[in-house]
């Protein structure tokens, strides 16, 4: 072949730089690694080139990266802490509209107790009924959303994936039992199950946190929450557990289906006929095949988790004030509806743009990873 298929853009060169750089690093630690993975690396590059040509995919990626950056940096760049009640500085800070300037006087309670430096502050996005700066709370809220989503996605789907792999590969009674359990869990509408679980779990989570100070301090750091707010944090963690239980059955069914169709492949049959152990077949032949579509689902669900978690907070389950959570901010703001619209509009936009980012990215990835549409994209890339 040899002929250059793509006219490389700046972003493509960036891809080359990153992929080659990372591969080079790994190669230095484990010599020979790069050579073994050569085919996969160039396939990965091609995939990323294709992503570079999807405007919606790039927009999604940009939104996602922006969100992640805010979630990491948010607590550091926020003008105030999430629980700084500026009403103690200036009574007019209560439900202050966007753009309102608040004066913090030297020696005021606000200065002494909340530790806010004296001076004039502009509340770009307004404040809530306690005079808490909305911009700061949205920045902290990004952290909350990201950590919740990561915690949910790091466990829930994988329970389902593991069970789906087992059910699909083993078949027979094991398959039947697992799938009947899946049926039972799928019979509950996800939101209702999550609501019921978040209603009955908080005390247990709080008890767990009290018994495990190490876990508590990790959780506090992750969520950028002050020590005195362990109680509200426990309620937030409840949502994570509830969503684990809601999120696995879908993946079990999905993965089982994919395994069943991957098993039909001749090379898998051949591997079985050769007596290659089950675990190895799953790892070497089946998992790589289903990884693409799985990645798409995981990306899309990252957004979905953020949306559902916000919905639960809105219903009063999960995060409670003073913790900053986008869904909860809307709920608290809705108490003043139709006044103080900024308390609804801005957090809602934050949720929407974040989730949209994951959806755009996932959608573009689906097109790129699906062989059927992949050809069309590559065809378009070539032009003509």
């Amino acid at each position, binding site marked *: 072949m040899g002929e250059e298929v793509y006219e490389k853009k700046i972003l493509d060169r960036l891809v080359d730089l990153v992929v080659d750089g990372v591969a080079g690093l790994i190669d230095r630690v484990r010599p020979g690694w790069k050579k073994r993975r050569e085919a996969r690396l160039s396939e990965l590059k091609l995939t990323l080139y294709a992503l570079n040509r999807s405007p919606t995919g790039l927009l999604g990626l940009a939104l996602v990266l922006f969100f992640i950056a805010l979630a990491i940096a948010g607590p550091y760049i926020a003008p105030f802490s999430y629980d700084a009640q500026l009403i103690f500085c200036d009574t007019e800070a209560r439900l202050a509209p966007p753009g309102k300037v608040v004066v913090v006087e030297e020696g005021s309670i606000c200065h002494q107790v909340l530790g806010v430096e004296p001076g004039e502050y502009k509340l770009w996005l307004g404040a809530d009924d306690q005079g808490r700066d909305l911009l700061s709370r949205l920045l902290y809220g990004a952290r909350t959303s990201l950590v919740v989503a990561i915690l949910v996605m790091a466990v829930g789907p994988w329970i389902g994936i593991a069970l789906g792999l087992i059910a699909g590969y083993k078949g027979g009674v094991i398959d039947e039992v697992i799938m*009947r359990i899946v049926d039972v869990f799928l019979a509950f*509408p996800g939101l209702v199950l999550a609501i*019921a679980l978040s209603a009955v779990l908080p005390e247990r989570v709080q008890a767990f946190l009290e018994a495990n100070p190490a876990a508590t301090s990790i959780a506090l750091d992750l969520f950028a929450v002050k020590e005195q707010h362990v109680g509200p944090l426990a309620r937030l963690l409840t949502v994570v557990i509830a969503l684990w239980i809601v999120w696995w059955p879908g993946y079990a069914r999905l993965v089982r289906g994919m395994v069943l169709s991957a098993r039909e492949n001749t090379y898998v049959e051949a591997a079985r006929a050769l007596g290659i152990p089950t675990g190895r077949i799953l790892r070497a032949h089946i998992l790589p095949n289903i990884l693409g579509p799985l990645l798409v689902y995981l990306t899309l669900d990252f957004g979905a988790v953020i949306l559902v978690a916000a919905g639960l907070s*809105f*219903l009063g389950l999960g995060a409670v004030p003073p913790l900053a959570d986008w869904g909860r901010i809307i709920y608290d703001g809705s108490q003043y509806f139709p006044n103080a619209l900024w308390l609804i509009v801005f957090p809602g936009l934050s949720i929407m743009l974040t989730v949209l980012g994951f959806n755009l990215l996932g959608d573009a990835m689906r097109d790129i990873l699906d062989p059927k549409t992949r050809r069309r994209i590559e065809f378009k890339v070539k032009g003509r």
Partner: protein
Amino acid sequence: MTSFRRFLLRRMLTFIPTIVGVTIVTFIIAAVVPGNPAKLWAGGEKASPEVVEQIIKEYRLDRPLYEQYVFFMYKLLTNSMVSPVTFNYVWDEILERLPVTIQLTLFSFTYIILLGIPLGIISALKRDTWIDAVIRILALIGLSTPIFWLAYLLIYIFFVKYELTSLAGTPEPPYSITGIPLIDAIIKLDLATFRDIVYRYWLPALTLAYPYIGFVARLVRNSFLDAMSLDFVEYMDARGLPPTWKYRHVLRNSLIPVVTALGLIFGGLLTGAPITETIFSLPGIGKFLLDSINNYDYLGLMGGVLFVGVIYVTINLIVDVTYALIDPRVRY
């Protein structure tokens, strides 16, 4: 048709363990209730010990778990379970909420079908044009929008600014045939009531339908394009069939996954919409579940979840059977 009957029988047989499983899970959720439910029901900290004792006896909270389960199930199924919080029969309360949920479902489903399917088809027919791009992005925005946020924006526009809907009460005609005002009004050709109902429900239903419209549009688009690439479509050109005939075949083939999804959406809508019902103050099933949780009414919650689970599993069964009927290839 005997094979179809065997398929039905087999499907029914998996239906029963699923329902039993649903009740067990519900019970487990209720059983992990922290603290002392009897005390909560009796009025919290200041409850008199006699009342607490009486509640424990009455609801057999001192018995082993499996006995409690059998007792709860028996009481629920015979509608002799009285909620210790509301003092009503659990089943009666749920049935009272049902008409609101059904009406909300019917309106939402109408939006989903009338908007989702045509948008999806247009998107597929105009694929890779700007129309397709706009519809796809709109669909994704629909899937990304928190409906509790959308609800307030819509209320602000259509209620606060222009008063094109009402947010209080649920219109009920003086007569009752099916128990569902919307259907009764249509049967009686009672335009005034019908208008009231539409006035009350059109906005919450739109809010509820919004994400599903995007979902269905995407699904229709993708399965339409999948069907377009089926082999027989190319052969239809060789047979000299007009494009409209070709699209009829494509549409029918692409509708199979769509019908499945629509069935599941319908089932999902019927199980209540906690967020929408709360914001628009509609007393439906979703609101009932939320109220039960907030009132520590775990028996009501259990009844509600059981009800919702049964509806969902039943709709699932109907979808499977429909699937077998519309696709001749399904081997029973």
